[in-house]
């Protein structure tokens, strides 16, 4: 398993790098990870199936009088044999790679460096997984072709009708309670956060209501059918057993999808009819299409050139959360937070101005003045900006002047000009000529989204450069066409930045449409909840299915912590070591004295970590589907992003459905 990339089953945090088709190497590794994970489960399932059906065969009589176990297919045996052989190779690779050390030669495959045996291990695990998936998934796929949509539709319609006639839909009306108690009564936040609160409350309400109802219906459907014996009249018709699972799944999914659509519509009405503040509208009632750059830290050298970020990687102010790093504030501070934009839309060149938005964290070492923010200066430059370069002086032909001096002279009186003012044309011309634009001393407040306008001339300047020039390296090594440098001007204050804190606004879409796109994330969660519950219900009783499904679903929200714990990266050790620290009142980061007791506790924690590492691939990554966060923040949810999330959803749900297929197939309905 690659430590660099979380597996497909894993979490993608809002702040982390979103999956994208651009980064195909990363996608390829996600696919390999999935083959390893799903293949491992398939191998376990295949082994159990072969063992069980070998001990409890169901024979078909062949015309020649011989018997054949109809539960074991040649493909299964072949898949299991091939996978076992390749797993042996993987085992050998584990043994042979034990001697690898940092100096062992490495080869780069799909962007990642491996030792020879490390690479053999990765690909043999994936190949074995593929063989196991083919062996285990083959009968599933074959029977999928025997399924008939008319029967599945009949069962789905039955499930839908059952839920409606049992008045389950009335439960959904409880969402209206949210209308009676507006979010602003309970969340005394800044006016600009009002929509965030409403979106947060409505979507959480929808999540809780729909997930719990969907899960309850799914968990109890098949067990209730078996208990009431109604399933006898279905399985005695020409119905494939998996059709029952799929019919139930689609029926309940249809019901909660309809409820989700209605609730989303009601949520939109609530937002539009809620008299939200204009600040909130400016902040969130948008669907920004943001153009993000690559972020790094730079330090201004003696010659006013930014030096490599290898020397300066931001200030650590001692917070546990290391997502943001800080730059120190002072008029003479050399610290810069730098965003490089290697490519930008051509429409920027045709624009009069392009919005640049940002929201930073502030860490104050002095109290500062009340109601006054921290001042920040933005410098936007293109590759053609070279402050020390000598150019012809336009005012005195024949003489040379440094670009910096020429700019300072020409920009006099043009500080902090905004679009629409008479001087904006001059600012645009200046930016187009020099490839630089500066906005000085903008006041920022904690996490408050602000925007400045960058003249379109700057982008026209950038577009005149040849591709080879524009793709040269930035200070930290990343290519750039346009670079934004942020400097904190206020002494004794620190500004915290991360990659997604600053971006150009490419365009603004429709908020309502974006709100519905955000609901797709809720729908993804519903698919997960229902598929887990229905799979479990093919084996367990309703109550047990519901409880296990709910536990797995809730654990999904803590998956990041579980992963940290499982990999041993969390602070304070495993459960027993943490307990020992609590009892001994010991610091979480201090090393414990290695006594036999501590060693025993750590050994137990090691075992529990091993177990949890297996469990993490089963826990659904529900946190990644919190797309409404984007809506609340006013960011457009792109179709590519939705598609990527959909693919990860399929990758997670498919193994569950295959498990449901086998559990249902092997189940004695009337036992």
């Amino acid at each position, binding site marked *: 398993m690659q430590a660099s990339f979380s597996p497909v089953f894993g979490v993608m945090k809002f702040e982390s790098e979103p999956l994208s088709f651009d980064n195909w190497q990363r996608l390829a590794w996600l696919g390999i990870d999935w083959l390893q994970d799903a293949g491992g489960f398939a191998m376990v399932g295949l082994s159990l199936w072969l063992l069980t059906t070998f001990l*409890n065969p*169901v*024979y*078909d*009589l062949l*015309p020649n009088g011989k018997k054949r176990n*109809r539960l074991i297919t040649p493909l299964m045996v072949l898949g299991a044999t091939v996978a076992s052989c390749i797993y042996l190779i993987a085992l050998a690779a584990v043994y042979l790679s034990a001697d690898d050390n940092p100096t062992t030669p490495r080869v780069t495959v799909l962007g990642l460096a491996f030792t020879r045996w490390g690479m053999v291990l990765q690909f043999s695990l994936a190949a074995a997984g593929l063989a196991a998936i083919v062996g285990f998934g083959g009968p599933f796929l074959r029977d999928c072709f025997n399924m*008939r949509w*008319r*029967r599945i*539709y*009949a069962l789905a*319609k*039955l499930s839908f*009708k*059952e839920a409606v*006639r*049992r008045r389950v839909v009335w439960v959904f009306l409880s969402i209206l309670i949210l209308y009676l108690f507006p979010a602003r009564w309970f969340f005394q936040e800044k006016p600009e956060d009002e929509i965030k609160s409403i979106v947060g409350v409505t979507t959480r309400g929808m999540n809780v209501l729909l997930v719990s109802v969907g899960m309850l219906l799914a968990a109890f459907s098949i067990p209730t059918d078996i208990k*009431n*014996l*109604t399933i*006898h*009249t*279905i*399985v*005695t*018709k*020409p*119905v*494939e*057993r998996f059709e029952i699972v799929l019919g139930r799944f689609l029926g309940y999914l249809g019901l909660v999808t309809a409820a989700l659509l209605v609730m989303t519509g009601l949520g939109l009405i609530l937002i539009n009819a809620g008299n939200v503040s204009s600040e909130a509208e400016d902040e969130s009632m948008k669907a920004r299409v943001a153009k993000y750059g690559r972020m790094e830290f730079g330090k201004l050298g003696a010659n006013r050139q930014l030096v490599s970020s290898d020397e300066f990687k931001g200030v650590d102010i001692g917070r546990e959360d290391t997502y943001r790093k800080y730059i120190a504030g002072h008029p003479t501070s050399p610290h810069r937070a730098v965003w490089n934009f290697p490519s930008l839309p051509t429409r920027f060149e045709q624009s009069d101005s392009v919005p640049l938005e940002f929201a930073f964290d502030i860490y104050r070492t002095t109290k500062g003045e009340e109601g006054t923010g921290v001042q920040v200066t933005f410098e936007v430059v293109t590759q053609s900006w070279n402050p020390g370069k000598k150019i012809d002086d336009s005012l005195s032909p024949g003489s040379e002047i440094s670009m910096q001096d020429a700019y300072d002279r020409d920009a006099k009186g043009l500080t902090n000009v905004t679009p629409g003012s008479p001087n904006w044309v001059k600012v645009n011309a200046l930016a187009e000529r020099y490839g630089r634009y500066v906005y000085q001393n903008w006041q920022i407040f904690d996490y408050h989204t602000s925007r400045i306008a960058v003249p379109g001339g700057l982008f026209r300047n950038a577009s005149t450069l040849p591709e080879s020039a524009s793709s040269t390296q930035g200070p930290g090594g990343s290519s750039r066409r346009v670079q934004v440098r942020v400097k904190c001007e206020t002494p004794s204050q620190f500004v915290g930045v991360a990659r997604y804190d600053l971006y150009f606004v490419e365009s603004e879409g429709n908020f309502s449409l974006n709100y519905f796109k955000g609901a797709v994330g809720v729908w993804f969660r519903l698919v997960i909840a229902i598929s887990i519950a229905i799979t479990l219900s093919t084996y367990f009783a309703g109550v047990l299915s519901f409880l296990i499904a709910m536990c797995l679903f809730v654990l999904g929200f803590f998956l990041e912590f579980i992963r940290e714990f499982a990999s041993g990266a969390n602070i304070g050790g495993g459960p027993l070591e943490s307990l020992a620290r609590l009892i001994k009142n010991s610091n979480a980061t201090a090393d414990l004295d290695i006594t036999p007791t501590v060693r025993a506790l750590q050994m137990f924690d090691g075992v529990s970590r091993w177990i949890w590492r297996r469990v993490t691939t089963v826990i659904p990554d529900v946190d990644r589907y919190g797309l409404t966060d984007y809506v609340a923040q006013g960011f457009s949810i792109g179709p590519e992003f939705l598609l990527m999330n959909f693919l990860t959803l399929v990758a997670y749900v498919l193994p569950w459905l295959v498990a449901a297929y086998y559990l249902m197939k092997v189940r*004695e*309905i*009337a*036992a």
Partner: protein
Amino acid sequence: MSATAVAEQPRTHSTTGSDFIVETRNLTKTYKDFWGRKKKTALNALDLQIKRGEIFGLLGPNGSGKTTTIKLLLGLLFPSNGEATVFGKPAADVRKNERIGYLPEESYLYRFLNAEETLDFYGRLFEMSREQREKKSAELIELVGLKEDRKRTLREYSKGMRQRIGLAQALINDPEFVILDEPTSGLDPMGTIWMKDLIRQLRDQGKTVLMCSHRLDDVQDVCDRIAILFNGDLQELGDVDKLVEDAARVEVRATNVRLTPELKQELEAVITRHGGALESFGHPTTTLEDLFKKVVEESKARPGRRYLPTTGK
């Protein structure tokens, strides 16, 4: 080949089995606990053949293995040993179900549906078109006498009505083989008579019927052959008439004769001469079912008819 011949022939098996709808060989079902330990053998080495076009009855007390046999044939249970084929296909093969109709012991239907919706749902499971479903539903609702109640949900139905709609769903696909588990359960006497007539009609249409029942009179009335199970073992198998025949006794029936002591003496003399003994002499009794049927039919024919107590002297 007659029913009797089937019972008497050597038990050979054929997977193609054009003459036999059902064949079981050494069919055994053992229930085990979670740890795989044997709990109970519900069916033990059953060898059975059901011929096309006959009405076959499974008899036995509770726990004898009747319902287990049916569930094994339907693929609801998997055999612990032996095989069962239906239409030459393994019992676990769902494709065989296209030609089977099944009425469970209790009519296990969705009670939130009405009669029309119920039949429409089951019709969809057979991939019937809308026109086929509508036509067949109307026919079957008419057949089972629920036309007036077709829009009521099944939770409002009496047990007998549910049994009727249960039978309708079993016939929705015009099956060649009908399995009826306690078909007269919950039916009133007229309903029982109607059900038995219907079962006979099914046979007359060329269908094969397998039924199990506790009501021995019902089985005797309609079945061509029966199997008697006890404690999972097959105890008796054969033609009903043959099995119930009392070879030690002779029954003579006559019409237009008055019961007189002289007649009795003469009959006794003849019987004694042939080495026998007269056991009873008198009018035969009809069955209660026949009496009930007669009363109901007369009541229908003569509205207002009622019982009047006889005034004895």
